[in-house]
Every structure is written in C-alpha cells, then in structure tokens.
C-alpha cells in the first residue's frame, strides 16, 4: 500500500521539478549578473531570497536585494545597459530596468 501511494507521489514531484526547470529554461533571460557581493535574488516561484553569483541569468519577475555594504551589478540583455542595484536592502525588480524583449 505504501509503495502504491509513494510511486505516484514521487512521479508527481519529479514532474513538477522537471516542469519547473523546463519553465525556467523556456523563459528568456532579461539580464545577467556581472558583479555580486552579497546580492540575493527571489525568483518568481520561490518565497525566499537566495544568493546569486556572477553570470547567473535573471528573468522577468525576479527581485534583487543588496544589503548595505554589498554590491550588485546586472546587465540587461536587450540593450546591454548595466544597472547597479542600490545597497539599501530593499527589493528591486529586474524588469524595472531591463524590460523584456517584445516578440
């Protein structure tokens, strides 16, 4: 009985993860991290901020946060402009500066 229940559960979880990855992979990045000292990101599907490193992609809906004394610089993919995220520990939307490409 335990085995019968766990198999669909595992499959569902696996599919959810795969789908999550696929969804992320399907989205086009709107920016890329070019400098990060203590900068954190909160992805669309997550509820917590996580560390982010140089060359990580940023997507529409991502929020960035740089603590005081830290540094975070991103580069928009559409026009290559760079933006230094203020180190006020307040959330900043990536889309605010790097608007997604219009297809």
């Amino acid at each position: 009985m335990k085995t019968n229940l766990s198999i669909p559960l595992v499959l569902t979880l696996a599919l959810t993860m795969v789908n999550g990855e696929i969804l992320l992979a399907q989205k086009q990045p709107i920016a890329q991290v070019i400098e990060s000292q203590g900068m954190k990101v909160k992805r669309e599907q997550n509820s917590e901020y996580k560390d982010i490193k140089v060359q990580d992609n940023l997507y529409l809906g991502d929020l960035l946060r740089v603590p005081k004394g830290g540094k975070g610089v991103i580069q928009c993919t559409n026009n290559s402009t760079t933006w230094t995220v203020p180190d006020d520990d307040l959330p900043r939307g990536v889309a605010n500066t790097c608007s997604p490409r219009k297809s």
Partner: protein
Amino acid sequence: MIKTVDTPSLNWAIEEYENAIKALETADHGLSAQHILKVLTARDAVQAAINQKKQPNSDALIKRIKQLDTRLENKADSINRAMKIAARLEEKADSINRAIKLADWQTILNSPKKDWWWLLDPITANWLWRFLSLVFVTISLSLIIDISAKFFQGGPDTTGVFAVIVPSVLTLLAGGGALTKPGQEGMEYILTSLKFDRNSWDKLICLFSAIVLAIVVFIWFSLPSVANSYVHWGDQAYCQAEINQDERTGNNNCLPKIDKAESRYQRAIILNSGNAKAHYKLGKIYQETEDFEQAISHYKIAAKGGIDKAYYDLANLYFDRHDYPQSDRWLRKVVKPLESNKQGYEITKQHLNLLQKLARTYLEQKEYPQAIYWLTLGRDATKDNEIRYNVLKLLGWVYVKQQRYDAISILQDAIKIDREKASAYCLLAQAWEQQGNSKEAKTNWEQCLAYSNQSDPDEDKWNVLANQYLKHRGEQG
C-alpha cells in the same frame, strides 16, 4: 399630258420651276389649279434632274432650289385656299364640301409618294407637338443649367466638360430646331435631306427633344454615380484613405496627394451632397491637416449618412481636443449600453481603446461614475485578454480610489488574465492596504516591484510607492 417625267438638265428644270412659282405668286387671288399643277410638276422635274447622277449638283443650284422651295411653302395656304375654291366651282352641290387634295393629284400623276410638295395640305395639330417640344427643351435646359453649375463650381475638369457639353449641344439643337427660325431652317434641311414626310416634322422634332430630355435626365440621375467615381479617384489620390498614415506612405510607394484628393471629394459632394463617403473622407483629410472645425462638420454629415465610423472619429477628435463631454456623447452613439446585454456582443478594439482613454480621463478628473459606466461596458463586451486586463485594471483603480472592497476581486481577475503585468499587483497592494491586510499588501507590492517597468509612468510611480511601503515595513520590523 401635263406630267413631265423626262430628265431635263437641272438648270432648265430650275428655270421652269422658278417661272411656275413666279406665275403662282403673281396670280395671287386668280390662282388656279393649272398654276398649282404646273409648279408641282416643275418641282417633280427638278427632283428628277437632281436624281440623275450624271447631273452636276453644285451648292449654288441646291441653294437656289431651296429658296424656291421656301417660296413654294410660303404659298401653301394660298394653294390650299385655291384648291377649295376650285373644288366648289367644279364639283356638284352634293360634293361641294369635299376639298380636293394635292395628294389625290399625286396619285393620278403617279409621282413619288414622299415628295413634300405634293403634301402642302394644311398641317393639323402641329402646335401640340411644338408645345411638347418646348416643354421638353425647357426641362432639358433647366437640368443642364443645374448640371453645369455642379460641374463648373470650383473649376471644370475633363469629365465635367464632357458631361456638360454633350447634353448642351443636343438640347441647343433640339431647342433651336423647335424654337428659332435659323434652327427651323436647319432642321428642315436635315429632314428634307433625310426625305421625311413634312407632316411628321413637328413630331420628329418633338421626338428628338424627348430623346434629348431622356439623355439629360439620365445624366442628371447619374450624378450620384459620377460622384462615387470622384470618391474613388479621391481615394486613389489619397492612397486609400482607410489605411493609416504610416502604412500609407510605406505601401506601394504611394504618396498621398492631399490637395488632389480634397478637390475630388469636394466635387463628389457638389455632385451629390448626400454622398456620406465623400464627407467622411473629407473629414479625414481635414483632421489630418488640423482643420478640426471642418473635419467635425464633415464627420457629422457622414454620421447622419450612415457611416458609423464617423461617430468614432468624432468621439476621438473631440477627445484629442480635450472636449470630453462631446467625446462621451459621440462614443455613446456607437457603443450602446442596451446592446451590451445581447449574447456575443463585442465592442471593436478601436472603440475599446477610446473607451479606455475616456475612462482614464474620468478617473483622473475624479468623475468615477462615468468611468465605471464605460469600464463595466468594456469589461462585458470583449474577449481580448489584453484589453480585458486593461479594463479590469482601470476598473480596479477606480474602486481603489473609491476605497471599495470590490477592487480586490476585480484586480485579482485581472491578475488571472496576466500574471506578468505589474499594474494590477500595484493596485491590489493598495487595495489590501486600505483593508488593513499588510501581509497581502506586502506580497503584492513585491509583485508590483518584480514586474513593473520604469518606462511606464504609472508603474514607475507605483514602484516608488512599493519601495516606500517596504522600507517603512522594514523599519517597523
């Protein structure tokens, strides 16, 4: 035997004919049947000589014959009087009232039946035909004056010149033939040459006048069709007025010739003042050239003429000129509230865009009921997700301004349509703030930040508000 059927030379025949006419003229009251018969047979001889192909018929001779014929015609009444007197003298009492007719003599002498000089009997009822001719010519002239005025107003063009010249010439021919002496002579010459029975000349002239009138009436009734042609030519000059400016210049290298298009549309209106299409296109031109009063005037006529697009253009034009009550008034003519209850009722994208602009203006002017009126109408009448999102966003915004709880569900509906747009999140955050739900407010302010774009003035403004809120919350711990 009196009749001469040999074919003498034309000169000789004319001489004889002239002598006979002179005798006829000098006889006056003593005119006898012999005089008459001599003239008629002399005329027969002239005709026989003319018909002889070998005879050289010079213009001078023909002209002389014509003069003699006229002299004979002038004696028609005397001839007929004499014939009656002769009949009275020669016939018995029981037949004294029977007038001898020249046609009877013609039969006896076996002359060609159609020769007019044998038909000098009094012509009856010709005044009826002449009167009818006069009526037809008068009507034709009146119509031609009207047509000419329309075509020559604002300067004639090729089409106009042809449209006026053809019926004018025909009418002048008919009118001249019926009413003037030179015209009558010319007409007589033509009809004589064509060998028509003289008794039917007035009928023929009347028929000709009627045909001319029919042609003129046809042209007059065709003016609306001609007007449509001018609209078409105007469209060509304007590179099809339906297409917007950007497409027009980029399409088939067609460069609009506005002055040409304008004059063609104006001509179309002169020819048919009720041509709604021409008024509408002219309205477009005046709008483009920023002659707004003229544009409004023509749009109004077009709208009355059944061009529904004109209502929208009027509403849009008034909106651009910041006359919102007028814009509202004209938009209501095309977007009718009652019809929104019908199943499948859908407002066009163009109307919805104006509807949103108008609602947004009412929102800014704090005229919330008017804004709600248009937005509820728009929400129920579109299946386009992008428009529906914007309408719901605006409606939610109005409710936020009114601090209504309904704002939450309206904005949540908008978010369901598009989760990657900031506006609804930003407004929802404010709605939750008003309701005192700080957790939901924070979540939505974050979403507002995540999706807002600084290039959108509203979103940029809300971005600042979001940061202020989150900073304040952070300071509060």
